C-alpha cells in the first residue's frame, strides 16, 4: 500500500490542497525588498504553504468560488468608461496617494507628508528601520489566520508589490486617500498597507477606484487607546474586475474604528474584515452597501472578537441585487468570557429587485460571557408594494420611486459614515447607480 492510501478522507483532502498550493506557488518570485520585509514575506509564504489556498470545500468558501482569485493569471477585465475626475471623494480636500494598475504614481500623488502623519511607501520601507511598521506588517494578518484561515491575505503579505505605511500621531483632519486607477485591462494589483493610530490620535483613510483586473489588498490597522480611525472605501465600478480585500484591525481601550465600503458592480468582490476589541470600552463598526446588476458576486465576511469588557460592535451590511446578482454575508461575533457588558449588533439585508437574484447569509454568534447584549438579523425582501404605490400616487415615476426606496434601504449602512461630507459623496454615487443601474 502506498502512503496516500493510508490517509483518512480529511487528511487526504489536506494533502491534495497543500499539493495544489505548492504547485500554484512554484513559479512565484517574491518582490525585491530589504531585510525585515523579505523575512516577513518568507514567513507569510511558509504560513500559506501550511494552511493551503482556498477552495470551494472550505467552510467559509462555500458561497463564493475562490478559483478566479487563486489562479495564477488574472482573467482580463474590460475597462469601464469613467473618467478619473468623476471618481468619488473628488470634492474632498485630501492627501492623495495614487496607484495606477497597482504601481505608485508620484506625479499624480501629493507629497507624502503632513502634520501629525508619517507615511512611507512599502516599496521604500524594506531597507529602513521603521519599528512601528515592522511590528505590525504581516503580524496582524498572521494573528487573523486563527480560528478561520485567510490564505489569500497571507499570499498578499508575501507578494504585495507596494502599499503605504501610515502612522498618525495627532488628530489629523485631512484624510489620506488611496486612489487605485486602472489603465491596462489585464493588470493585477497587490497592495499591503499598515495603519497605526497612536493613542489619542485620529485619522481618516479613504480608498477608491477599480485598481486592476484583479485586486488584492490587505490593510493592517492598529488603533491605540483613545485613537480613532475612520475608513471609507468605494470599490471601483468596473463590471468585470475582481477583488479580494482584508482588513485586520486591533483596537485598544476606548478606541474607535468605523469602516464603510461601497461596492457598485464588479464580477467578484470578497471583503473580509477581522477585528479584535482588545481594550475596555472600544467600539468597532463595519458596514457596507453593495449594489449589483447581472454578473455580480459580492461577499462580506466579517469576524469581530470581543476580548475585553464594555465594548460595542456593529455590523451593518445591505445589498441591492438584480438580474441574477448574488450577495453573500458571513458575519461572526465572538465574545470571550472576559468581555462582559458586550454590546454586539449585526444586521445583513438584501433587497432583491427580481426573482433571479440571490442572497446567502451565515450569521454567527459565539458567546462565552454571561452579561452581554447581542443581536443579529438577516433578511431578504422585495420592494414594498404599498410604499411604491404611495410614492407613485404622489407623482413619482416608477423608476424614481424605486430608486428612492433603494436608497432608503441602504440608509442604515450609510449612517455608519461619521463625516457628513463623505457620506454625501457616497450618497451621490448611489444616486448615480440607482438612476443607471450600473
Amino acid at each position: 500500500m502506498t502512503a496516500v492510501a493510508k490517509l483518512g478522507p480529511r487528511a487526504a483532502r489536506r494533502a491534495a490542497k497543500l499539493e495544489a498550493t505548492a504547485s500554484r506557488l512554484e513559479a512565484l518570485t517574491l518582490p525585491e525588498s530589504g531585510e525585515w520585509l523579505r523575512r516577513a514575506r518568507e514567513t507569510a509564504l511558509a504560513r500559506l504553504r501550511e494552511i493551503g489556498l482556498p477552495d470551494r470545500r472550505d467552510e467559509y468558501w462555500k458561497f463564493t468560488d475562490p478559483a478566479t482569485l487563486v489562479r495564477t493569471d488574472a482573467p482580463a477585465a474590460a475597462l469601464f468608461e469613467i473618467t478619473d475626475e468623476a471618481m468619488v471623494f473628488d470634492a474632498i480636500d485630501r492627501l492623495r496617494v495614487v496607484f495606477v494598475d497597482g504601481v505608485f504614481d508620484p506625479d499624480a500623488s501629493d507629497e507624502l507628508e503632513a502634520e501629525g502623519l508619517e507615511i512611507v511607501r512599502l516599496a521604500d520601507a524594506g531597507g529602513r528601520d521603521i519599528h512601528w511598521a515592522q511590528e505590525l506588517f504581516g503580524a496582524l494578518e498572521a494573528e487573523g489566520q486563527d480560528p478561520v484561515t485567510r490564505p489569500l491575505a497571507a499570499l498578499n503579505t508575501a507578494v504585495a508589490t507596494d502599499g503605504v505605511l501610515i502612522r498618525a500621531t495627532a488628530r489629523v483632519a485631512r484624510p489620506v486617500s488611496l486612489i487605485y486607477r486602472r489603465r491596462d485591462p489585464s493588470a493585477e494589483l497587490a497592495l499591503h498597507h499598515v495603519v497605526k493610530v497612536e493613542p489619542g490620535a485620529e485619522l481618516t483613510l479613504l480608498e477608491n477606484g477599480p485598481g486592476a483586473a484583479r485586486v488584492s489588498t490587505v490593510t493592517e490597522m492598529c488603533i491605540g487607546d483613545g485613537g480613532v480611525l475612520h475608513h471609507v472605501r468605494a470599490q471601483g465600478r468596473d463590471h468585470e474586475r475582481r477583488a479580494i480585500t482584508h482588513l485586520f484591525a486591533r483596537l485598544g481601550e476606548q478606541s474607535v474604528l468605523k469602516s464603510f465600503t461601497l461596492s457598485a458592480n464588479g464580477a467578484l468582490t470578497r471583503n473580509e474584515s477581522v477585528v479584535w476589541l482588545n481594550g475596555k470600552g472600544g467600539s468597532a463598526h463595519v458596514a457596507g452597501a453593495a449594489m449589483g446588476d447581472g454578473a455580480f458576486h459580492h461577499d462580506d465576511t466579517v469576524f469581530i472578537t470581543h476580548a475585553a469588557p464594555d465594548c460595542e460592535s456593529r455590523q451593518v451590511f445591505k445589498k441591492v441585487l438584480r438580474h441574477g446578482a448574488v450577495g453573500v454575508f458571513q458575519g461572526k461575533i465572538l465574545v470571550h468570557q472576559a468581555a462582559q457588558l458586550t454590546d454586539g449588533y449585526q444586521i445583513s439585508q438584501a433587497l432583491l429587485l427580481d426573482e433571479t437574484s440571490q442572497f446567502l447569509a451565515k450569521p454567527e454568534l459565539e458567546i462565552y460571557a454571561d452579561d452581554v447584549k447581542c443581536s443579529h438579523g438577516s433578511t431578504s425582501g422585495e420592494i414594498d408594494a404599498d410604499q411604491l404605490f404611495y410614492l407613485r400616487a404622489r407623482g413619482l415615476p416608477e423608476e424614481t420611486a424605486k430608486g428612492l426606496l433603494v436608497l432608503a434601504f441602504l440608509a442604515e449602512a450609510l449612517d455608519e459614515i461619521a463625516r457628513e461630507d463623505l457620506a454625501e459623496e457616497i450618497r451621490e454615487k448611489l444616486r448615480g447607480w440607482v438612476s443607471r443601474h450600473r
Partner: protein
Amino acid sequence: MLEIKNLHVKLEEEDKAILKGVDLTVEAGKVHAIMGPNGSGKSTLAYVLSGRDGYEVTEGSIMLEGHDLLDMEPEERAAIGLFLAFQYPVEIPGVGNMTFMRTAVNALRKARGEEEMSSAEFLKAVRAKAKELKIDAEMLKRPVNVGFSGGEKKRNEILQMAMLEPKMCVLDETDSGLDVDAMRLVADGVNALRDAGRGFLVITHYQRLLDHIRPDVVHIMADGRIVKTGGPELALEVEKNGYADILAETGAAA
C-alpha cells in the same frame, strides 16, 4: 371634472365583486361627500381612482378632465392633477419627508413641462404651508410618516395636497383620528383649494368634518353602489339616525 360611469370592480386575486356600478360626477369647485358603512367600498373606489394594483375594472369608465384614467399609471394620474389622501398613509423609513415632497413636486412639475423648484424655493414654500397647517417643522425632517401620530399622518397628507396643488382631491377618512382643531385645519385647507376651483371627493364616516367643509352633494354608498344622493341634509340624517333607515328605504344590504 371627474366622471365615473357604471364602475364595476372586482379583486384581481379572487372572484369578489366590490364595486357594483358606481356613477358619480364631481364638478370643478364642488365638494362631494361619500358616506357609508364600513366595507361598502369607499376606499376601494379611492384606490381604483388612483390606480392601485390588485383591482380589476370589469365594466365602466373613469374620466378626469377628458383623460381616461383607467389607461394611466398612478404617476400619470397624479400629473394630471389627481390626489388621494390615504386613509392609512404609508410609512417609509429611510426617505426624508422633505426629500419625498420635493421629489414629488418636481416630478409633477416636470411631467407638466414646468420648471423644477430649487431646494431653496421649495423649502420656503413648504415651511410656509406647514406653518399654515400648524405642522411642526420637525416633522419635515423625519422619515415619511415614521413615528407620526395618527393626526400627524393626516396633516402630512394635507400638507402634500397643498404642495402638489391638485385639481381633483380624494380624501379617504382624513378626519378620522383628528382632534377638533386639526379637523378645522384640514377643512381650512380644503376650503382654500375649493375656492380655487378644485373638485373634492370627501369620504367620511362622520358629520363632524362636514360641519367645517359644507359639501355640495352627499352620496350614501352601500354594498358597492351609491344608493342615495342628496344635499348636506343627508349627512345630518345619517348622523341622527344611522344608515339603517336609508338602507331599508333603498333596499340595499349593508
